[in-house]
């Protein structure tokens, strides 16, 4: 029962990543693409969390923490570059 619900949750998260990629391909400005990148990296954190439960390994959560930290830093650097104050 729990595994079935988690499979549905993983499928929904993958669908949401796919829909976000439509915005990445289509988006008019560069800021749209940065937002799409941010949404993809945060959805990946939820995906890795569910994956860590399914395989019963706690070390996968460390990968999620590294994801969150470096995605945040990349978004900050890109925004500073666009604002010309790096």
């Amino acid at each position: 029962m729990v595994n079935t619900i988690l499979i549905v949750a993983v499928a929904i998260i993958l669908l949401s990543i796919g829909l976000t990629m439509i915005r990445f391909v289509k988006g008019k400005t560069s800021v749209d693409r940065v937002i799409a990148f941010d949404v993809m990296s945060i959805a990946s954190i939820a995906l890795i969390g569910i994956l860590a439960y399914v395989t019963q390994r706690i070390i996968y959560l460390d990968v999620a923490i590294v994801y969150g930290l470096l995605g945040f830093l990349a978004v900050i650097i890109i925004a500073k570059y666009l604002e010309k104050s790096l």
Partner: protein
Amino acid sequence: MELLGAIITLMGSFVLLVASIGLIRMPDVYNRLQVGTKATTLGTILSLIGLVFLMPGWWGKLILLIFFVMMTNPVSSHVLARASYFIKIPFTDRTVVDKLKVSTKAQKVEYEEK
């Protein structure tokens, strides 16, 4: 208890799906920014809280991750909105008021060329 955690995780992933649909349908950069960070924060936090119910032994790292997402996500939203305002990306036609332009206090700290 485990069924409750799984249902909360499912709700979180559903919120993520709603966020990505809103990212396609919204007309403007600023509206997309709103959708892409607030709804995503809620979805990720719900998913991780569901994992806390599923696996109570891992609460330390999961709470750390929740705290981290809750701290960093509004900051990136704010920085992106500020950058896209100051490189003059146009609003949509239905925008009513621009309070940063009206405010006299914000005029002083307006962005200067470096």
